[in-house]
């Protein structure tokens, strides 16, 4: 092994929930995070670059000193902070000056037209299609992961990606001056490949699906001293998604919504939004209230939805076959936690066919002026289904998370959006075309010579 950071640490062999701070004495950073803890067996570890429990392989999660956070934060302090995720730095697992590329604080749009179309009264879109710098929510998690990577001494960063994560890791690594090598499936949408290459990382296009890319990266992470944002830095990385919960609460005037609908890939984002809400309650920034959490998957990659519907406590992996590539994870690591969260909160997990996903993209674009990618189309399609099935109360304040931008997945809608009307630069040519446009369905335009 070359240049491997010593990431192995001894677990607290007997998971003793009474002793919550095994890393005390090693706590040399200025953040409020204290250690890592296994979500399954409770074993505790120092806050180093590791992601699974040595005892049971359960995922590790960052733990914090919430009393210290509560003493340090206030609504006013947060509002006076940077216009980015770093206004919530007290809740994030970093101890140094963060890599701030302006990520976060995306619009929370009151979606009146879409609400009317669906029969809802109070619908909001959290629009991470315009998150900076690479137009997906991934910039949140990567900003946190790379800040922590730098603190832990990594000089090369990497990821296994369905596209958006590669865009974000490459861009933010470029800004931070970190070496970068990313792994993607070879069949990704061209916009996502170009949107990575432009930052000049090394890009490995793996002949295989995302789950195979992940497996390869786990093996690479074993033997190279690199910081893989979603492997050995995963506990820190995933915490970045909490900011999607924080921001929504702040933008709603420090209130929690009644119901959220979010896409499900690995299940991490979904669980971290909820964790964000819980942390705001725990530190007294919002009043406690139940928030129903509903999730959206593509029918062509539905392992979490299936486990939810069949009331199972394990995820049976599937081989993805859907246009929604950014959420096509057949073997979702946090899937079981997403199922538990939907159940516990009274939410639902539903799926959308590829056709419904395209319709979802168009519906959001036509009603709210937001061009989302396939993951967003899935979420809108599932929102519609849940409303139609009576699973979302029209009076509830519902927030839908749109996590990526449609310009990156143009292939998905290219043949569904029609064509422009080509005319001569003459008034009569325009007038003929305008008359036709008033009488023809837009999809027929392309067959008509005006």
């Amino acid at each position: 092994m070359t240049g491997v950071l010593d990431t192995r640490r001894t677990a607290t062999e007997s998971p003793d929930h009474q002793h919550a701070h095994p890393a005390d004495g090693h706590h040399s950073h200025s953040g409020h995070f204290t250690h890592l803890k296994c979500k399954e067996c409770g074993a505790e570890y120092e806050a180093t670059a590791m992601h699974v429990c040595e005892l049971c392989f359960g995922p590790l999660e960052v733990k914090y000193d919430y009393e210290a956070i509560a003493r340090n934060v206030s609504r006013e302090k947060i509002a006076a902070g940077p216009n980015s995720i770093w206004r919530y730095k007290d809740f994030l697992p970093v101890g140094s000056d963060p890599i701030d590329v302006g990520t976060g604080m995306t619009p929370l749009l009151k979606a009146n037209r879409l609400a009317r179309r669906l029969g809802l009264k109070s619908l909001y879109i959290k629009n991470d299609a315009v998150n900076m710098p690479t137009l997906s929510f991934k910039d949140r998690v990567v900003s946190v992961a790379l800040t922590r990577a730098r603190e832990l001494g990594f000089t090369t960063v990497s990821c296994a990606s369905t596209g958006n994560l590669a865009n974000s890791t490459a861009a933010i690594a470029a800004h931070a001056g970190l070496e970068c090598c990313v792994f993607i499936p070879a069949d990704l949408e061209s916009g996502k490949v170009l949107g990575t290459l432009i930052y000049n990382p090394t890009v490995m296009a793996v002949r295989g699906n995302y789950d195979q890319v992940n497996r390869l990266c786990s093996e690479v992470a074993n033997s190279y001293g690199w910081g893989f944002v979603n492997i050995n830095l995963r506990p820190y990385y995933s915490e970045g998604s909490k900011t999607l919960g924080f921001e929504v609460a702040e933008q709603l005037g420090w209130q929690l919504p009644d119901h959220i609908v979010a896409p499900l890939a690995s299940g991490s984002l979904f669980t971290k939004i909820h964790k964000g809400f819980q942390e705001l309650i725990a530190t007294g920034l919002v009043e406690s209230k139940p928030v129903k959490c509903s999730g959206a998957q593509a029918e062509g990659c539905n392992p979490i939805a299936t486990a939810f519907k069949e009331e199972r406590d394990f995820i049976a992996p599937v081989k993805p076959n859907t246009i929604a590539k950014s959420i096509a994870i057949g073997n979702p690591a946090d899937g079981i936690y997403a199922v538990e969260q939907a159940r516990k909160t009274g939410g639902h997990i539903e799926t959308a066919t590829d056709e419904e996903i395209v319709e979802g993209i168009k519906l959001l674009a036509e009603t709210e002026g937001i061009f989302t990618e396939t993951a967003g189309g899935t979420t809108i399609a599932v929102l519609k289904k849940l409303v139609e099935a009576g699973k979302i109360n029209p009076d509830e304040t519902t927030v839908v998370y749109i996590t990526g931008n449609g310009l990156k997945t143009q292939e998905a809608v290219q043949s569904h959006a029609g064509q422009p009307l080509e005319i001569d630069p003459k008034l009569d040519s325009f007038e003929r075309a305008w008359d036709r446009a008033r009488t023809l369905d837009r999809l027929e335009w392309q067959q008509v010579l005006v």
Partner: protein
Amino acid sequence: MAIKVLIPTPLQKFTEDRAEIECSGDTIDAMIDSLEVSCPGIKARICDDEGKLRRFLNVYVNSEDIRFLDGQATSLADGDEVSIVPAVAGG
């Protein structure tokens, strides 16, 4: 019969830091028992008390997830490569 097993970092304390181990066995279950003989203690980390593989661990035979094959009863042939990979967050 030789089976090559790829060992993830958290388990390498049982393999004297080796990332690859050769062992035998005509099924995944038999391979795990063989691994336990050469690397004592490793089975208790891979499997729960009932001998079932832990739910956050993925096992592949020649790149195929054993859950798409016959699970722990999946048969192995000479020269097969088995990788043990902890679950990874999404991307």
